[in-house]
């Protein structure tokens, strides 16, 4: 009963995503890159870091990284809580 609906949904999903891919701008030519050019120019001056990616990860978007560390922390606490009776 459910399988035909799933197959239809899957075909619809795949077609939808392919349309997105075909509509994208050509590969390798970013449409707008003001923000990234700013990072490349200013990372050494403002954050004094040679690695632009790291300067984004820990300085410009440092708050995201705090969230990222939190995700890992959450998963660890969750796993320890899950196995709290098993491990005893």
């Amino acid at each position, binding site marked *: 009963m459910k399988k035909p609906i799933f197959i239809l949904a899957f075909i619809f999903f795949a077609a939808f995503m392919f349309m997105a891919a075909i509509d994208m701008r050509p590969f390798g030519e970013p449409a707008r890159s003001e923000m990234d050019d700013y990072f490349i120019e200013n990372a050494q001056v403002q954050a004094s870091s*040679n690695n632009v*990616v*790291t*300067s984004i990860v820990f300085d410009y978007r440092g708050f995201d990284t705090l969230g990222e560390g939190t995700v890992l922390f959450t998963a660890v606490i969750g*796993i320890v809580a899950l196995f709290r009776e098993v491990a005893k």
Partner: protein
Amino acid sequence: MIGEMSRIVRTMTNIIFGFIVVFGFYVIAHGHLSPGGGFQGGAIVASAFALLLVTYGTEVIQQYIAKDLLSVIESTGLILFGSFGFLGISATYFYNIVANSGGLFGSPTVIGVNPGDLNTSGTIALMNIAVGLEVLAALGVIVLTMSAAAEIIQNKEKS
């Protein structure tokens, strides 16, 4: 998971283990100069733990690596990370106040292509170390807990 592996594997593990850990810390410390950083380096160190687990089995390793200690390290790493954000609270949260200030990690970097100087980048380097500690402990706890639980579940099934 069950028991020890053969002598060849144990010998190689003993030799490689130290190198993996050192390489992991190298990646953590040079996060602001070369590809890598806290997350990648932490993952490398944690993979050394996984190697130990595979080689020696969970029971042996649990005597040497305390899970409680690891989870304390993990919390400490994150607390440090959050607090480094507070260093710049005179401007805003997460303001990089140490960069270009002249102190530890505070010397300005050469603009343009350069060979790299470890003593730059301010809070970025500090945060890299904090995150590195957090990730190595977190992944270590995950690997240890899951393998210990897997062993218990397997044993239950046999009996």
